[in-house]
């Protein structure tokens, strides 16, 4: 399940710093305790789409002794979009936790 959750996750990760696709997948896997294993072939197209929407930018980095990697950086537009997404998700979370009678636990 990728779909609509990808954007806020990716934007949030990039907000904390530029990174590349492989790292993003690993980070998500770690954060979810292995529950969310994104497939690379599915993630990258989404990244490209977000790029064409102007939410993120891409640039190649060739470090000494390391292989070429394509890094992504969040843009101002992306930051604003993230803020909006955050609002929506928190609202949703608030509603669901009440309905499911779960102890609210904000990160």
């Amino acid at each position, binding site marked *: 399940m990728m779909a609509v959750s990808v954007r806020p996750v990716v934007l949030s990760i990039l907000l904390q710093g530029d990174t590349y696709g492989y790292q993003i997948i690993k980070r998500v896997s770690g954060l979810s305790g292995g529950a969310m294993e994104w497939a*690379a*072939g599915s993630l990258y*197209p*989404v990244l*490209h*789409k977000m*790029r064409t929407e102007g939410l993120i930018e891409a640039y190649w980095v060739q470090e000494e002794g390391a*292989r070429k990697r394509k890094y992504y950086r969040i843009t101002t537009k992306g930051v604003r979009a993230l803020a909006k997404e955050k609002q929506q998700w928190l609202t949703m979370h608030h509603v669901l936790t009440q309905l499911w009678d779960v102890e609210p636990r904000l990160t």
Partner: protein
Amino acid sequence: MAYDAPRPNAALGRGTPFNLEHAIATWRRFMASTHALIADDMDELESHLREEIEEALASGKAPSVEAAYHYAVRRIGDFATVDEAYRHVFWDKIFYDNLLLRELHWRTLMLRNYLKTTFRGLKRRPAFSLINIFGLALGMTACLLIARYVQHEWSYDRFHVHAEQIVRVNTHTDLGPEHESAATIALYGPMLEEALPEVLKSVRLQKASFSIVQDDRRFEDIPILFADTTLFDVFSFDLQRGNPATALSEPFSLVLTQEAARRHFGSADPIGQTLNVNGEVDATVTGVLAPIPAASHLAFDMLVSMSTSQQVNAWLFNNWYSTQFHTYLLLPENADQAALQTKLHALVQQRAASDLLNRYPNYHLALEPLLGIYLFSDKIAQIGPTGNRTYLYLFTVIGVFVLLIACINFMNLSTARSAERGKEVGVRKMVGAQRIQLGGQFLSESLLLSFLAVGTAALLFHLMLPFLSGFMGKDLSLTSQDYMYGLGFLCVLGLGVGVLSGSYPALVLSSFSPISVLKGRLESSMRGTGLRRVLVVFQFGISIALIAATLVVFAQLRYLAEQPLGFDKEQLLLIDFPGNAVGAQSSERAKAAFLQHPAVQQATASLTSPMGEGFGRWNITVENVSGDMQEASIPNYPIDFDFLDTYGIDVVAGRPLSESYQTDFTEALIVNEAAVAHFGYARPEDILGKRFETWPRGGTVVGVIRDFNFQSLHESIAPLTMRYLPSQYGTLSLRLNTANLGETMQDLEGIWKSLKPDFPFSYQFLDDTFAAQYARDQALGNLFTIFAALAIFIASLGLFGLATFTIQKRTKEIGIRKALGASSTSITVLLSKDFVKLVVISFVVGAPVAYFGMQSWLDTFAYHISVSPLLLGLAGGLAILIALVTVSTQSLQAATANPVEALHID
């Protein structure tokens, strides 16, 4: 279904060391096969892949590099999902990164590859492709040629700016439909224009023919029209040189067409020059017309001012009976013709001479629209030839059918062939070809064929148009603008046909799962067979009908040629005897001179020959059986005393005209048997001695002749009268001994020159005149031959496609039969039997159509054969023969194929 990346070393077997770089390179090539991934994406994915491999090795998840590689590849995702995901964002990327140009370049390359593969595909079966292209091209060309002819015929007189407002005045005497005439007297033109405000302008035309003498050259039978000055107001005959207001005012003024100007004056300016007319008077050229479109019911070489005719034939212009003119009126836009018609009735009743109205109580004038004249007018005394609407409808139907059949054939053959390629499709799908790619391949092949056919058709049409013009005797050339339209239409048609015929394999074949296709299971395409069989029956049915029609036409023509005519038409030479006031002396002298030649057995003078032109109807009153003077309008034939003898016409009652009787010079009349019946007499003897009255004077009937065919055999023999009237002679008829004809003709020419040195020796054999009568029917026969050949060819194409397909389906069956000992012959027979059955069915379909169609054509002849079953059978037999030949190539090939190959399990 999930397709994994290829396992590069699996084929090499165990024991080969794993090469990571090699593996990654292969993987990359595989991924790159989808156009959705650009190089940048490949780099990103490769980078990701390597990270995964490193991680897997480092964390111990994979025991070896090879294992790590496969693990990493799996983690990326299966090809189909990846491909689809990337496709999703493909175009956004292109536009965002401005890669459009590169994208177009790539697509152009792909297109070029498509074309290359398409050509290769076509070259694999060159005969098939050529036949396919040619069949479609032929159908298109035939349709275009027919369309051009039909368009030409429907466009008559439309070039006149005021075409919708022009009407012709017809004279109705209501003695019968043969008495509705397109001609009127001279008085009505100006009268109507003056008396009726709705008539803006009127113009009178009078047809005649001139001989022109210029220096020492002589031109005979030049068709001219006398015309009022108002001609240029009513019709759109533009003057290139000269003033329309004055060109036709003065007497003896000539306005030349382009052809006439060129003929008489070359490139010099003809204005002001003179030409001698009929050896009598000089006329001055006052204008030259701009080129006139060929589609005009008014045909002429020169226009002459009406004032000329008024001066020379003054008596025609205040005469209530001489209907020698064609009157046209220019009305305002959207004029109420019915109201005008009523006014016209009133006017005629008011102004016409009383004796005219007394003679013909139902006498009235009627208006006929200009645009209806060429194709819809059934009046007599037309100013020019009229077209035949029935033929046009027939041709249109044929044209549409031919095109339809050709297109259907094309689609049939293309799909029949594509079914063979099921295996190719299966294999390509296995290696990951997309539906769109495959479909596109089929579509582009079919479009290419289709457009090649379009190109061929355009070329063929251009080449054949002059032939069609000659064949039909009309100028059918096109402007470049017309060509543009035609080409546009063809391209649209080509596109449609190409898409339609490509879409079946594109959609159907490419959607099959590759396994079933490879195994040869194409059941759903068997559905197509039923439709194809129906089409083949239809096509052959049409072919058989056309072949039968052709046979009938030629049989009828031969029958006509063998018909006894009631006179002896062999070895009769007809010589044009020119001049107006010929007189008895002149003709007797000529006859005597010719009779001196040993080869000339008999000679006579008359107005014209039987079946010649000039058989005008004259008003005559004859005492009928009740004793009343009965009015009739029947052909009156001026002859001399030797005519009946020379032509071998029998006298059945009374006596022939003879110089022994003084009254025969002025007061005697000969009638034929049909005339006897027309006036109510039971026996020919009864009419002898009865009175008749006509111009110039009356007399009594002295003889009755046996009916003979003086018109074409389309007509039954009508009533005919004959008398001695030397002032009307126009033809000298000589019965010749045709031995040494060449010498004889030279001698006769010499004799002619001594008699009439100023006139050309213009002659024709009666047999040729006879043949010319049926020129139209002969042309119809030729046309049917062409159409029949075309139809059979196209039908054979259709059958060929069907045969190819169905025989191929039965390959296994044939293999088994052969293996069980059947001979090649028996198999060929078995395969062909099916198709012969189809042709038999189409015979049942086509024969009745031919029968009824040709029977109604034959009914237009008073003398005709009937459609015999033999003819129909012949047509059917021919069709079966052709079908067998068509099918034999395929069935023979299949029957002689190696059964081992046929039974090979794949």
